[in-house]
């Protein structure tokens, strides 16, 4: 009995010791900065370059980069921030632009504004609305996600076309070429995951439209002409059997690398995956993203892209300064980012650098980085707002009905009322 009481007492002591241990860590002057990011070949690598570049500036700062899957980062942020604890949180975290508003609005006091660390004027304009909230800048804009239409020039040639025919093209023209290529080579035009509407997102952003109104909250579906046109084009491609379905990322990449498809409309971050198949060198080109026919629309769009955020915990000033002096200032970091990773940044002064002028043999000597950089400047600015993925799930479901033959307006009205119900 005595033993038992002693045991109980000890276990209580241990428990209370555990719970009070966290106080001692509130050291405002910490030199340890933790960073969470996904994608070891792109984001993590870029952060490592920045870390190296910053050593000359401040060698005291000890930056630790931890790789996490994007879904894990979202989960960890949501669970920790909603319970009000910042223990174990990183100082800097990468958030996708589509999701940024949702985090900034849900946990307003948990992020640290970086207005003093960067000059928002120096970044691509379209990056600012998603990364700022209530007049304050929270995100340090990072990669561009500028979209392009990657095409197999050898397939196009078999059908009597060249990548020249895709300059400033609209989707109707592209579909015509896709049909001709399928006729000539038997290869379908694109591959598509029926659950991922990235293609539609890119299409509507070319005309400055989004799933939501400019306030970032009100669903804009029923009267969204761009979205309707995108739906119609999507059905046209499906009906012409130009779309090869895939269910996950690796199947997507496999379709590209196996040469099953003639075109890949995607963000520039797909470049390394396309180049992974070295035997296809010289057989690819990148055309500007096609615009929507019959409406105001430009040959530039965006897919994905993310920005760095500083959490409101000890070390925030140093973390913000680090981001400002690397991602938000001229220096060798940007040059290395282009040379070693092939990424396209959003820091405008760096876009004129020599590295962007490099010719890429894989793409038949095309200066793809310089092209991407020039398209970046044209991307229409939209407010991604709060509900991108809620609405996308609704649309992914509704588009199936439309493909099965239901009337477009009925489907859109239905999606609108669903979105109004869900997105609050």
């Amino acid at each position, binding site marked *: 009995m005595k033993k038992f009481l002693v045991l109980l007492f000890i276990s209580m002591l241990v428990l209370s010791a555990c719970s009070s241990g966290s106080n001692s860590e509130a050291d405002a002057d910490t030199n340890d900065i933790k960073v969470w990011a996904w994608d070891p070949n792109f984001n993590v690598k870029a952060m490592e370059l920045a870390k190296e570049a910053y050593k000359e500036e401040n060698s005291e700062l000890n930056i630790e980069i931890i790789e996490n899957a994007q879904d894990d980062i979202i989960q960890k942020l*949501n669970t920790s921030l909603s319970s009000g604890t910042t223990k174990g949180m990183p100082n800097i975290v990468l958030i996708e632009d589509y999701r940024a508003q949702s985090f900034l609005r849900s946990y307003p006091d948990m992020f640290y504004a970086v207005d003093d660390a960067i000059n928002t004027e120096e970044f691509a304009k379209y990056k600012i609305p998603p990364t700022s909230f209530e007049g304050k800048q929270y995100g340090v804009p990072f990669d561009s996600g500028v979209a392009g239409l990657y095409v197999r020039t050898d397939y196009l040639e078999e059908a009597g076309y060249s990548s020249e025919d895709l300059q400033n093209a609209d989707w109707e023209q592209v579909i015509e070429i896709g049909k001709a290529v399928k006729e000539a080579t038997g290869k379908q035009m694109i591959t598509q995951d*029926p659950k991922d509407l990235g293609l539609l997102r890119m299409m509507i952003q070319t005309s400055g439209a989004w799933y939501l109104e400019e306030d970032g909250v009100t669903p804009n579906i029923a009267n969204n002409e761009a979205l309707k046109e995108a739906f119609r084009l999507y059905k046209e491609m499906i009906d012409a059997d130009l779309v090869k379905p895939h269910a996950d990322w690796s199947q997507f990449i496999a379709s590209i690398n196996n040469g099953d498809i003639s075109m890949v409309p995607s963000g520039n971050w797909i470049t390394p995956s396309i180049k992974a198949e070295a035997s296809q060198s010289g057989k690819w080109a990148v055309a500007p993203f096609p615009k929507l026919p019959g409406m105001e629309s430009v040959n530039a769009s965006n897919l994905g892209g993310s920005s760095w955020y500083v959490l409101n915990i000890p070390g925030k000033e140093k973390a913000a300064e680090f981001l400002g002096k690397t991602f938000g200032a001229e220096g060798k970091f940007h040059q290395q980012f282009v040379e070693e990773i092939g990424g396209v940044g959003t820091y405008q002064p760096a876009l004129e650098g020599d590295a962007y002028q490099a010719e890429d043999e894989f793409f038949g000597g095309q200066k793809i980085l310089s092209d991407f950089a020039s398209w970046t400047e044209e991307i229409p600015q939209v407010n991604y707002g709060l509900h991108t993925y809620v609405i996308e799930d609704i649309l*992914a479901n509704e588009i199936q009905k439309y493909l099965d033959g239901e009337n477009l307006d009925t489907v859109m009205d239905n999606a609108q009322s669903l979105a109004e119900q869900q997105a609050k």
Partner: protein
Amino acid sequence: MNIPKNLGPEEVAIKPAPRPARSLRLKNTLVGWSFVCIASLLIGIFYFYPMVQALILSFQSGTGVHLSFVGFENYVRLFQDPVFLTTVKNTVIYLIIQVPVMILLALFLSVVLNNKTLKWKGFFRTAIFLPCVTSLVAYSVVFKYLFAPDGIVNMMLLKINLVAEPIQWLTDPFWAKITIILAITWRWTGYNMIFYLSALQNVDRSIYEAAKIDGASAVQQFFKITIPMLKPIILFTSITSTIGTLQLFDEVMNITAGGPGNATMTISQYIYNLSFKYTPDFGYAATVSYGIVFLIVIFSIIQFKAAGDKK
């Protein structure tokens, strides 16, 4: 015996030392309670407290940390939410098709493997039980590749000329559901079979012998002896399978991610989406999880009633 004649046996036991006995009993009670106490405390902290908190949470709504009480609004929204209703429909389809198929298959396999004359019995039992020890995510990923458009299943079907073009196992609303059902049946049949096998060991052989002498066929023996004898176990496995199916998450998340559209999305996955994929609304997510609790209770009651078990 040297018991004095004027004393009964109880008095002998108690009288010599009344005090130590009482303190012994007290001590016993205390020790007993202290054992129960720890378990109850832990269950209370880690089960009931979160349940009550979740119930309170289910009456709140808002994004992230901006939660405010909205009364029964979440519950009203729940019944008007087409996505929730779709997920319930999907889950119930899995339940109605998969659980009976699996239970019958498990029963059949266990009876076959219980045959005394069967050789390699241990091997077959292990082989059928083995899927249960694989991780949910690992086997889901393997299934995703097996059923990919150019996966091995389609290749086989094409090679033996059963189909003219690959079946879209993962991207067609109908076939995606079939894929999920096949996957969970593969994973859980062996698990249920083990319960039946162990229950069959306890069925007296002489009942079968008597039936055989009376001229009962194998089929009659199965329906008239085996099934009634296994009834409590069948009830148990069907309830646990029902609960498991209602909480289905890993397979759907990894094989189809709920797609195409919402065609394979389950209730649990919807909770995940509400909390993590969309702008987080933990209040409404808690409401949906109470929806699952409610459904589990209803289905369990139905099964108890259908099995006619009054105890």
